[in-house]
């Protein structure tokens, strides 16, 4: 075998790696029978360490949100930072209400547009179908900075003043691809004969849509909506470009807190946001697999 292609080199390396003599078949089966329980293999160890790695910073920050003093030296338990967060952080909460308004509005718009588009693309053949499929995929993969800048330049080119409206448009745009893909995945599992049956029984298109299709894919639609709310609530980079005076969202506010002098109030806020994320993830527990697949 010549080693002209990189794949040849790869196979060569693999066969070098595999010089060890294979274990005999009965011995291996016996071993496998013994090993039919969670065990300390390399992959399980890496998995466990990765989960620890992912949670370590969150745990540290939550622990120190209960610290009495400001720094990272433990001086005693206190819920003072939580009192400050809930009772004395007006600006933070008004930025949160901005975030919530934008999240609900843009997730709602994205869910309606994305669901309808998924139904159309899944069941009909029409002009620009491929164009719509392709263009709905692209925003998901471009770096956020690029989306943000292109929108900023667009809004200034059409003289649309930056504010809640521009944030709403931007958020709807980056939520749409997720809704479209998640509902499409759901429709793919859907038994088409049900629709034919409803048609044969004399249902109109609108009746079919509202009484058959939408109830059948409702879990997918709801999870797409929740996913969009999450994406919108946590977006910083795109919002950073398209926000104007008076339209500060929670991530923008947190950014200014992180950048210009850290207050432990942000640690207290961390726990609140982590709990919020856990609730949403728990609500979506049956869809985590399809969300993983659409990512």
């Amino acid at each position, binding site marked *: 075998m010549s080693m002209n292609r990189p794949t040849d080199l790869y196979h060569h390396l693999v066969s070098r790696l595999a010089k060890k003599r294979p274990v005999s078949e009965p011995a291996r089966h016996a071993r496998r029978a013994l090993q039919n329980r969670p065990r300390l293999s390399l992959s399980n160890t890496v998995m466990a360490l990765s989960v620890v790695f992912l949670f370590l910073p969150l745990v540290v920050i939550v622990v120190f949100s209960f610290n009495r003093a400001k720094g990272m030296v433990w001086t005693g338990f206190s819920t003072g930072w939580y009192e400050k967060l809930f009772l004395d952080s007006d600006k933070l909460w008004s930025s949160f209400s901005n975030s919530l308004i934008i999240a609900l509005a843009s997730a709602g718009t994205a869910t309606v547009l994305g669901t309808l588009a998924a139904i159309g693309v899944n*069941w009909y053949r029409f002009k620009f179908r491929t164009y719509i499929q392709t263009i709905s995929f692209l925003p998901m993969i471009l770096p956020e*900075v690029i989306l943000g800048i292109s929108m900023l330049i667009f809004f200034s080119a059409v003289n649309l003043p930056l504010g809640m409206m521009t944030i709403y448009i931007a958020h709807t745009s980056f939520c749409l691809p997720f809704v479209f893909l998640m509902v499409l995945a759901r429709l793919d599992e859907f038994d088409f004969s049900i629709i034919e049956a409803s048609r044969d029984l004399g249902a109109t298109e609108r009746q079919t849509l509202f009484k058959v299709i939408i109830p059948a894919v409702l879990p997918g639609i709801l999870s797409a909506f929740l996913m969009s709310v999450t994406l919108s609530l946590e977006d910083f980079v795109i919002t950073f470009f398209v926000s104007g005076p008076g339209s500060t969202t929670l991530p923008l506010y947190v950014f200014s807190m992180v950048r210009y002098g850290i207050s432990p109030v942000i640690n207290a806020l961390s726990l609140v946001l982590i709990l919020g994320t856990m609730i949403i993830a728990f609500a979506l527990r049956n869809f985590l697999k399809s969300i993983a697949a659409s990512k």
Partner: protein
Amino acid sequence: MKAGKTLAGRNYGPAYSYPMGLWFTVFFLLPILIIVVYSFLKKGLHGGVEWDFSLNAYVQMFQSSYAKLFVRTLWVTLLSTIISIVLALPCGYAMARSKYQTLLLFLIIIPFWTNSLIRINAWIAILGNEGFINVTLRNLGLITDGLPLLYTQSAVVLVLVYMYLPYAILPIFTAMDKFDFSLLEAARDLGATKPQSMFKVLLPNIRSGIVTAVIFTFIPIFGAYTVPLLVGGKDSYMIGNVIVDQVTKVRNWPLASAFSLVITVFSTAGVLWMIGTSARESARKKTSAGVQEAVQ
């Protein structure tokens, strides 16, 4: 074949799908086209552009300082992507074979969905001069001066891996989950060693998942802005930071547009590669299924 064509009556496809198509055309395609046009214009005095054809932006891009920046961005991105993928492969394998899949997915997704600034802030609190590690080591008497952990290139790579590891794990898990693990046993029964069965049977079969994972980590890291800004030092700026500075501080919109355009072209090429890989894979699976049917 999809049953769409057999539906009697009118074609409602456009009525369903054109609103979204229109939305993307106006709010996504048009902005990208404006960027293309702006990159060939002259910089306006106070931001904006002058309607005069010019290649200045592209000439500026090839300055040596930007070349250095480009190389650094590429290096940091490659390093973080490789680390993420190397960690994600065993993670995806462990998850796919685990009885507690939903719980593990849950554990991966919680940090992933938690506000990114909150997570960056947590790392600052850990790595900073008065951060958790330094304070703890000092109290234990192990060090006297603070270790410079934050505002370094390594901090940027560490936090980037932290932020994008789930992007690598999820597609690899999805691919592994569809993999028939009895093939590994078959390979072992036919005399393959464990590494052979992994490298020659498992990895080629999940190739499209790996490609997706690479794309979904590489592209966002390449355009990273927040992480280098908040945990990096003066010399860990990446392309994303320079583009933002060009827009907000220097107000050189043509140059920012040109940079954005280059990244857009690269990302699109990456995605076409990804789509090509998965199309080839499903085509291959179809032919092998056809062969099996023919044999039976």
